[in-house]
């Protein structure tokens, strides 16, 4: 059984978080410490961070926050002569509370830019809000396809994470090319589950490959046995699953314990087998294919450095959410730097973000001007043993995948 990673929780470093690493780089940021540098003359740049720190997505939010904090503690804490101040608020992964906190950050704390949000249910209304409030927002989650489309594009909202379509579409092509012909798709019955499977279907079902069945259990299903029996009955040569979190843990475990893994190849949307599910899934996850915009084992200098620093700083394994936070923060920092620390107006900030072309632990990214969605690499991964840990290694790469935003 892998290590007991409780390092991400418990430490309450909240609210006013100053990227004030006086001595030694890479140290963790002090809670509620106020940094009053003798040198800096101008007011700090305030970055409002929205993350789910309690509630359903608490562990994802914690990872995301770690990624964000790490970026700001790695880079210089100052942009030009201004220090960067993080104001962190908890969305509880609920729209009512999330919007309330967004209003607080924008209207009361007067932050210069908003960063964060994981839940798509918050993403939809928040995009409208920032459009009305004219405040730039870079999201590190909110992957629902509909949030960033050509039709509802506004210059203030940017998505640095991914769209569900973007991640799942290449997988259909790849698995089709690998020779699978009969797929059974399964995922939780809500937006993310459905969207991911639809995207996969479209690229898989070409030529003579087809879908022989589907099952969409309610989110939070404990017992997948009836569905597994269905799968067996349909006799596919491939099962494509888009579960996440505890559903992913249970599905993969039960898939193995019912003997299906030996007979039918399992593949899925990246969250099915990610670094945060491995401790619970154990051996069951070995050999499963998946698709996502990052892999722990991605062999680039930037990623290797990121993984090493993260493990050292937090004594925990980084997950895709940690990277998402880190990259989101990178985008913000990069834009602020290009502006020389001056933000004459939100429109200037928006243009700066739109012009982003930066290399990240996930590979190079930029923004699509028509949708403000990120253009990035998508990786096909396979779970493999790395020493006595399980990690995702990269099997294939799709460069510069762009969500059409139709």
């Amino acid at each position, binding site marked *: 059984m892998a290590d007991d990673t409780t390092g991400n929780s418990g430490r309450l470093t909240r609210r006013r978080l100053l990227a004030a690493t006086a001595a030694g780089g890479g140290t963790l940021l002090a809670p509620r410490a106020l940094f009053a540098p003798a040198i800096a003359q101008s007011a700090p740049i305030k970055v409002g961070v929205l993350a789910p720190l309690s509630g359903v997505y608490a562990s994802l939010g914690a990872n995301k926050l770690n990624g964000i904090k790490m970026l700001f503690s790695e880079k210089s804490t100052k942009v030009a002569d201004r220090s960067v101040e993080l104001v962190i608020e908890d969305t509880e992964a609920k729209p009512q509370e999330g919007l309330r906190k967004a209003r607080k950050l924008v209207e009361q704390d007067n932050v210069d830019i908003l960063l964060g949000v994981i839940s798509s249910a918050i993403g939809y209304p928040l995009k409208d809000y920032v459009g009305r409030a004219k405040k730039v927002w870079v999201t590190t989650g909110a992957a629902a396809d509909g949030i960033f489309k050509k039709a509802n594009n506004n210059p203030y909202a940017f998505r640095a994470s991914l769209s569900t379509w973007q991640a799942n579409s290449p997988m259909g092509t790849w698995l089709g090319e690998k020779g699978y012909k009969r797929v059974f798709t399964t995922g939780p019955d809500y937006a993310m589950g459905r969207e991911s499977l639809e995207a996969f279907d479209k690229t898989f079902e070409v030529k003579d490959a087809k879908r022989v069945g589907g099952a969409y259990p309610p989110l939070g299903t*404990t017992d997948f046995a009836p569905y597994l*029996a269905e799968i067996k009955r349909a006799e596919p040569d491939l099962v494509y699953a888009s579960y996440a979190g505890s559903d992913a843990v*249970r599905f993969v475990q039960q898939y193995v314990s*019912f003997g299906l893994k030996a007979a039918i190849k399992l593949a899925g949307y990246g969250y099915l087998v990610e670094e945060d599910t491995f401790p619970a899934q154990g051996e069951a996850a070995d050999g499963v294919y998946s698709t996502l915009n990052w892999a722990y084992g991605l062999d680039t200098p930037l990623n290797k450095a990121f993984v090493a620093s993260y493990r050292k700083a937090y004594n925990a394994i980084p997950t895709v959410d940690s990277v998402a936070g880190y990259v989101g923060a990178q985008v913000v920092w990069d834009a602020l730097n290009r502006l020389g620390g001056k933000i004459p107006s939100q429109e200037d900030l928006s243009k700066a973000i739109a012009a982003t072309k930066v290399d990240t632990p996930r590979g190079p990214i930029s923004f699509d001007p028509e949708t403000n969605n990120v253009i990035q690499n998508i990786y096909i991964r396979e779970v493999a043993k790395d020493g006595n840990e399980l990690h995702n290694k990269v099997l294939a790469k799709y460069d510069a995948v762009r969500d059409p935003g139709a």
Partner: protein
Amino acid sequence: MAEFLTIQTLNSLVYSMLLFLLALGLSLTFGLLRVVNLAHGAFFLLGAYVGLSTWRYTHSFVAAALVAPAITVVIGALLEKLWLMRFYLRAELDQVILTFGFALVFADIMKMLWGKDIHGAPAPPAFSDAVQVGNFAFPSYRLVLIGVGVTLFTATWLAIERTRIGALIRASVADRVMVAGLGFNVHFLFTAIFAFGTGLAGVAGWLAAPITGIYPGLDFEVLITTLIVVVVGGLGNITGAFWASLLIGASETYGKALLPEFASFVIFGVMAAVLLFRSWGRDEEEVE
């Protein structure tokens, strides 16, 4: 087709026994003490976490299965002695709110102690493989659960209906003053019953963990399902809880297989139907 039916019937039996394991503790507490313990899910999860930590330390499934209920029994007894016992004569709603408050408190404390990540629990090594049913592999641990559920039901039922202690318990619930007057320590009995209920919840948490996983939020998911089972079975009637588990287990399993669109509504629909059937033609206060 026959094989499909066999598999789904087995699935429904397993799911039913899982439900029954969860529901037994709650049903007992309400049936005997007339207390609705909304912290039941929290005790379930606590048992799972304690079991997990014990397992990590000892690598023994059985040791964990003993320590988990031990801890939940102690905490349940403390809760009852220090707080709950003052609420026996108060309105039902008050107990509900009190135990709900404790459920929220326990949930956050567990988050502080064990973190927010998802954990998996192993099945005991003797039962981690699969058994061939037709040309379908069925995990043997699930079959074991069926046995455990039936055994627990029989044992508990016998204990309550056929032993002297059971008679004492039933008597003190029916008329505590009389029983106290006969010289028995009724307070202690009540504490013991409540603690037994929470102990059952704790052991159920560990036993179910190989299937459910262990993570924050599981407590309320389990609580909701358990409440429905217990309400359908008739609060306080453990035989009722047994049959209700079978009914709901079957409807959920077959519902998932045959009417996937409506699967989540099935369980609520069953409960609403049963409640209304029971209440038909009677004044609302008399529904039991």
